[in-house]
């Protein structure tokens, strides 16, 4: 190793160190606009519209066809299936819904029931807060058995989010990887 190349390497080390310091220093100075963290229990993260959270159930739309129960692949912890439907036959010979349960102790959020539902009574939800505790028996699995009123009150994910609100805590002015459109007939780019 010649003297000149050694000195050049040393100078390059110093030069590039200070270049790197400038990047982290700028990040520190503009911290408020570049903050990525959401202080979760204090601030809430709004989810994007396609988010697959806890299910939403609209009882007034339900026709009690039980397709969701048949589509459900998971046996429940307390019930026979993860989805349990109780109904009676009304005066007009129509099935009327009594109670609708989803057991979140066993639900895997596969959304097969949502796909199976012909009347959109089961909808994708926005809630990600499914941990339940009982004030007396602190960790009781039966608390995860959601009834239909509870499921009706869950936020619907399509009504909650837009991508702008979902990612507004992330600054937009930093370089983001973008995909260039390639016109048809272009040669395949070299890897």
């Amino acid at each position, binding site marked *: 190793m010649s003297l000149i190349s050694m000195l050049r*390497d*040393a100078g390059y080390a110093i030069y590039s160190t200070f270049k790197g310091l400038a990047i982290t220093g700028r990040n520190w100075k503009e911290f408020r606009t570049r*903050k990525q963290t959401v202080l979760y229990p204090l601030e809430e993260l709004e989810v994007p519209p396609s988010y697959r959270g806890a299910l939403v159930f609209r009882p007034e739309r339900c026709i009690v066809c039980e397709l969701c129960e048949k589509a459900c692949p998971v046996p429940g912890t307390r019930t026979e299936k993860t989805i349990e439907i109780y109904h009676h036959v009304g005066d007009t010979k129509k099935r009327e819904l009594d109670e609708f349960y989803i057991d979140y102790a066993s639900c895997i959020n596969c959304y097969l029931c949502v796909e199976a539902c012909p009347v959109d009574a089961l909808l994708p939800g926005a809630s990600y807060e499914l941990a339940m505790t009982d004030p007396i028996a602190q960790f009781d699995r039966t608390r995860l058995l959601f009834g239909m009123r509870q499921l009706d009150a869950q936020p619907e994910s399509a009504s909650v989010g837009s991508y702008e609100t979902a990612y507004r805590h992330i600054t937009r002015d930093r370089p983001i990887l973008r995909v*260039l459109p*390639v016109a048809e007939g272009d040669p395949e780019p070299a890897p």
Partner: protein
Amino acid sequence: MPSSAWIDLGHWIAAQLHLPSAAGAAIGVFIAAFVVLNLIMGTVTYMIWWLRKLVAFMQSRLGPMHVGRWGLLQTPADALKLMSKEGVIPSLADKAMFTVAPAIVFIAAYLGYATIPFTPRLYVADLNVGVVYVSAVASMTVVGIVLGAWASNNKYALVAAFRSAAQMVSYEVPFALALLGPVMLAGSFSFLGLVRGDLGQNGAQIFAETPLAGLLGGNLTFLSWFVVAQPIAALCFFVAGLAENNVTPFDIVEAESEIVAGYHVEYSGMKFALFFLAEFANTMTLSVLTTLTFLGGWAAPFGESAFVSAFGEGSLITTFWHLGWFAAKAGFLISFVFWLRATLPRVRVDQLMDIGWKFLIPVTLFNLMLTGTFVSLGIPRLALAVLNWVLFGLVILLGSKKARDLPKVNLKQPATYPQRATVSAPSAGGAR
């Protein structure tokens, strides 16, 4: 020359209690040791907090937020947790040595402060070999590290300790050699002499012959700091100090993200806390030493003499003025170390050894020869400073030329990746 405030305080207490004057010196030293110990503890506690906050901000995170406002009580809480934990000693470990090793490491970090003056009055002992003493005491850390690893009877700890010993012993050499340049210019091995040489009482040559001397009424005191006359030595000293204290980018010994602890894997509770404390105390010592040797210690960059003559050299307000400047400089250097920690990747082991033996030692030896020649021939300090800066600038120029020759990456522009053309593109929907 003002005397040590601690010893004066001890003598005053001894006079009040009708004790002999030798007891007064002992009382003064004891008080100073107590105050400095607590200063180190407190500073290190909040250094850890500041490290976590600074690095978090540089990485777009928040850092500790929940314990106290802005997480201010996080590190005291961590310290309490460590104190309340069980100190596990492995059954096959050498119990006595295992217990002594963290104490040795911490004492080595603590002993250096005996000769380090914070202001012209706040020092314990003004040893005439202070620089030698500090670099000797700093190398005692290796003993504690190897002892602790050996006593914990763990082969991984032992391997890490050997690596640490190799690193720290090799960087002792440039660390001491880089200190010798300022020592030659100041003509003194004591820290008070070094700072006084900085202030220009002993080595005023840089001032007397510059046309700049008249500017601002001769108040450009920062021009006489050794970082102006010895930029290469200052850089080498700082880099060698970083490597000796196992700080990023030289933290191969305890790479926090990969090998969790290195030489102190077997330690827990307060014994681990002592290792951890000593690590940060060493960073603080490095910053304090750099401040004293190269950044003029407690001296203000402008208008130092005017302030001191207005309030008197030994007065309380001047002491606080000096203390403030000292804390500002040392604090900036500590933050700079953390800044480097947030920025740089780690060097490899062979690169580490190359930097130490093939670069820093030759460069510091060259600097030693250059400075020695200039001092012995009586050439003014200004010429040395100019020569140093020209060499430094040439090296940076070479490096920036190399940087320009590398392929360009524009960080401002978003990176674009061409999409692969699909094999059977449906023509009805058009290309995406």
